[in-house]
């Protein structure tokens, strides 16, 4: 039996666990397996279904859909959303698979009409721009900024502090700290603007710039020999070690 909330025609199904000060606007629908923590705001026409757990202080803008399932089986997997996120209009966040939940961390801004696929992971402090499509099982690490119409293919990883330009097709992992552009993408350089804003020092940024030139030289992938040579050097700064490790672990989608 559906329970009608403060606005007529907003529906909170029996079994949903909603904290007392959650604001639910008109025409929202909340399914029976949903948990919403304190401080959340649902503007209007927001749909939250499936086995979805929403943390504190999130704001859901009108017409967003959380926990959807492409095949109608929303309860197959879970969707876990952290604290302090802004989920903007027309965003669709799919529920997870049986193996892996869809996970969104803290303090993210997921802009208009983004699609976050089944089993995808979004870290903390990301800004995901309009119409970014994050396919199933993709991973967006922390402090990433995407531009409009970025497409992240299945199972790809966008490294921390990276920036993707508009219309980028991410068909291989995006190295951390990088700026990538094009389809297929090339590494345009170090994302200095974001690194400075996040408190990285001049020395680290200079070290990264030097290593980027040697490794990528304007291409979209790292030169294997240079990568091997750099990895042997114990004295590289910590940021460079993080970069090299990410490059060694990366996946590449062929074709």
């Amino acid at each position, binding site marked *: 039996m559906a329970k009608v909330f403060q*606005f*007529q*025609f907003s529906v909170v199904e029996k079994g949903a666990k909603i904290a007392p000060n959650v604001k639910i*606007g*008109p*025409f929202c629908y909340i399914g029976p397996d949903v948990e919403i923590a304190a401080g959340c705001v649902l*503007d*209007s*026409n927001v749909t939250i279904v499936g086995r979805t757990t929403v943390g504190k202080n999130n704001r859901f*803008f*009108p*017409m967003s859909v959380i926990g959807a399932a492409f095949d109608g089986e929303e309860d197959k997997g879970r969707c876990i959303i952290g604290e302090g996120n802004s989920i*903007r*209009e*027309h965003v669709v966040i799919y529920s997870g698979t049986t193996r892996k939940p869809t996970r969104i961390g803290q303090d993210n*801004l997921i*802009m*208009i*009409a983004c699609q976050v696929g089944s089993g995808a992971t979004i870290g903390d402090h990301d800004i995901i721009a*309009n*119409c970014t499509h994050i396919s199933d099982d993709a991973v967006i690490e922390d402090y990433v900024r995407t531009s*409009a*119409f970025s497409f992240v293919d299945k199972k790809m990883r966008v490294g921390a502090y990276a920036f993707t*330009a*508009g*219309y980028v*097709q991410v068909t291989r992992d995006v190295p951390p700290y990088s700026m990538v552009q*094009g*389809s*297929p993408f*090339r590494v345009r350089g170090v994302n200095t603007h974001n690194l400075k804003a996040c408190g990285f020092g001049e020395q680290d940024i200079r070290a990264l710039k030097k290593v980027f030139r040697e490794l990528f030289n304007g291409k979209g992938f790292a030169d294997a020999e240079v990568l091997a040579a750099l990895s042997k050097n114990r004295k590289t700064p910590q940021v460079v070690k993080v970069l090299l490790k990410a490059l060694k672990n990366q996946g590449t989608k062929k074709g």
Partner: protein
Amino acid sequence: MVDVQTIREIHSSARIAPDAKIGPYSVIGPEVIIGPGTVLGRRVTVMGNTTIGSGNVIGDGCVIGCTPQDMKYRGASTMLVIGHKNHIGPMVTIHIGTELGGYVTRIGDENILMGGCHIAHDCFVDNRTHIGRCVQLAGHILVQDGAVLEDMSGAHHFVTIGRYARVGQRTPVRRDVPPFTNFFSEDYGWTSPSVRGVHTAGIKAANLTREEQAELKRALSELFEDETALQTKIETLENMGVEGEAKALCEFCQLSLQGKFGRNRESYRGQVPPEAAAVLPAEKLAEIQRSMQ
């Protein structure tokens, strides 16, 4: 049977013309004004300090007047003004202005905004433009009369799309687009877009006289035969003495060249742009300019 009139949330302070129609599941906020003959579809959300003129058709699922996605927005009751006889497709989002961007977003008259497009804060869309499906306009953009943006194109902050220009599908626009030109890239994967030819349909739509058309076409072929030495070509044309649309074209290109990154409107950062000053009431404008000092 439930009365459709009850399946809407219309705030009692909203001012809605008696012959305006609003579909079910719509949500209309307290500061909204909707003019006569305007029709809203189903699940339309209109919020914020939004004024919608007469004779508009607004499709299902639109969210109009929401807060900007700009981190600099501080929660003021900034404005959105939509003119008359626009045709706004389903799932369109239009945001109000920001305090530092001029306080107002404005859509003019007789525009076509197709499904899924997004008009961000502080944009000015003039009249009779055609904005295609899923087009994403960032903030502070000026789209002049008659411009066409085809499906899935996107424009960077502070870009100006000139009169009757045409931006091709999936084109990332990062600099000003001159009037009456076609702007796209030959391959959409890597090559930067550029001016590729003349928007002949735009020239027809602009209703110019024969002489004006001829002069404009001459100017366009002079300037955009190739993209080199634009400054020199502009000066040559102006020295030869051009008038009307051709002169406006030269002035547009000159301003873009002088603008940062090829965007003339970059000079309006942190200021009230002239288009906003024209729309804002005088006391409000004075107040904003005082607060910006």
